[in-house]
């Protein structure tokens, strides 16, 4: 993997942030924009689309790099 590739581990946080924005924007904009087309104009289709977004958000949450366990901080 190239050192400065966007797929490099140091950009995992950036990829997750981009994923968050795309996962929200793309389905909502598509649902509205394609409404005049035939893709989403069937009962249930747009609802399924919008309900899939929270599930996609769970997937995005698991792409965020995991932190190592550290000792709990006493306040």
């Amino acid at each position, binding site marked *: 993997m190239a050192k400065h590739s966007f797929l490099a581990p140091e950009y995992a946080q950036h990829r997750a942030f981009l994923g968050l924005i795309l996962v929200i924007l793309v389905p*909502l904009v598509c649902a509205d924009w394609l409404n005049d087309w035939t893709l*989403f104009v069937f009962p249930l289709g747009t609802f*399924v689309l*919008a*309900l899939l977004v*929270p599930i996609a958000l769970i997937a995005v*949450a698991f792409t965020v790099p995991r932190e190592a366990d550290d000792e*709990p901080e006493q306040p």
Partner: protein
Amino acid sequence: MSGTSRFADGTLSQFVAVSGGLIALCIIAALLGALGVSGSALSILFILLMLVLCAVLSGNAAQSVPATSGVTFSIEALSAFGLFGIVGAVFTYGHDALVLVIGLAAGFVLSLLVVGPRYSTVAARSLPDFLGMRYSGAAIRYLALCVMAIVTVLFVAAQLAAAGLVAAQGLGVSSLVGVLVGALAILLVTVLAQNSAMTRGHIVLSTIAFVGCLIAAAWVLSARTGIFVPHLAYGGLFTDISAAENRLGLETHFDLPGEGFGLVAALSLVACLAVGSAVMPHLLARSSAQGSRAGTQHVLRSGLILFVVLATALPALGVLARVDVLALFTAQQNAVPFVNMLPSPLLHGAQACQMTAERMAEACTAQGLTEGLPLEEFRVDPQSVLLAVPALAQVSGWLRALLALVCLCVVTVAGAGAVRTLAAAFTDRPAEDDKQTNVAVAAFAITALAALVAMSGASLISLGAWAYSLIAASFVGPIIIGLSWPKTNTTGALAGLIGGFTMTALYIFGAQWGFDFEGDTGDEWLWFGIPPMMAGIFGIVLSMFLTVVLSLIGPKPKPSQVAFFGTRADPPVKANPEVLE
């Protein structure tokens, strides 16, 4: 904390025990209902039981492991605003209202990415304390505390307004009784918990709310569709809705996007809720109670999964209510009998929008309609829909009682979390016994103020949405940008906080009442078609702009402030005693 031992502390057995107890309680209530005990009597029994649980269990500190915190976190993130708002908005606005679920869920991911893990490792005792460490000067601490106080009072008022609705529309008693019961439960949990972030009371109430909500949704939906999983029960209902819409000759379609809020307003609402829930002080405190980055990530991930399971089931109730109301419309002969067919909560909701029986009849007469009231003329307050679902679906009284219990548990868990966080921020001292009195006094004052706001008659959905808008617009600059961009300086953060809050507050005021201080007179603002519920979007944009521009042209932040942006392996930043003083 190792991933393999996540449930080895008895978390799963606690969850199963509470769920089993709740199911047994429902069976007993169903038997009592069959013996003739009314739904209202069962509701009162359930609520008294909840108050006893609050009093007995809130004094017992529990281990704050990610799994238990995840359940509580998901209920605190849902709150009465989400519970009543998702069902009511889906009923009223159809497809577009699903952005409420998306926005609240996105807040978990945003917190996971930017705020939560970093907040947990800084030895800050409150959000103002955290900002005092990130930026120099005391001004930002005091301003943040003011914003936090206003937002928390609005948020808790929304919870208490929900308790009032349960009393007025679910039990038929004065809403004041509900507000007082809600306030009592919140104070019991807050004061008895003392310095514990997590008690057995939190765990039991959160589990009851979570499981009870799923039981109610599954029971109502399965009785109608035969499908026990509410998330999968939409299909048949949409066919019913489409058929009813065609019979009524409607031009709008419930299941299509853009018919409710519209795309711009929908995206604005997502932004307000996502940023708002990422920086909401009591959610930040809950997610970071583990004191480690890994623990915070566990809480946020488990909370997100549980939240999505719960929040994606709730729209099914709104869709079902829509089917039943459309059925009433297609069956009506004229307006007055139609009003008589409405269940009590929905009638209250209609009256809240000045839809009295006389007005409906007048609307029919004025339009020369002999076949009853057209659907377009019917207005109902969205917050009334949830409590109307059992009556509309004609299910047993025990389900009404269960729904009342769920609502009160959500109100208590979310309200107590918010009150405790603000009370701790006001007292802002290390945990000592003699300071506990101060926390109790502060909690009592906050709850009393919120109760007064709740009794003003404002909609709980509006109160909740304003709280999210105000907190998002105020803290997007100082926290979201401030933790993502090391060059953010104190001037930029202060300007972002003041500008975002002022802009949002002005728009809420202008769009809700206008400057004649009276609603619905025609002078209200409506920029880009965005209603006051999404007012935060203007504040968010202004706050981001001010923070970035003033940080670019202003002085560079001090090295100690930039230390917040160390690598992942860096040790946690310690509180600066001078700043704290």
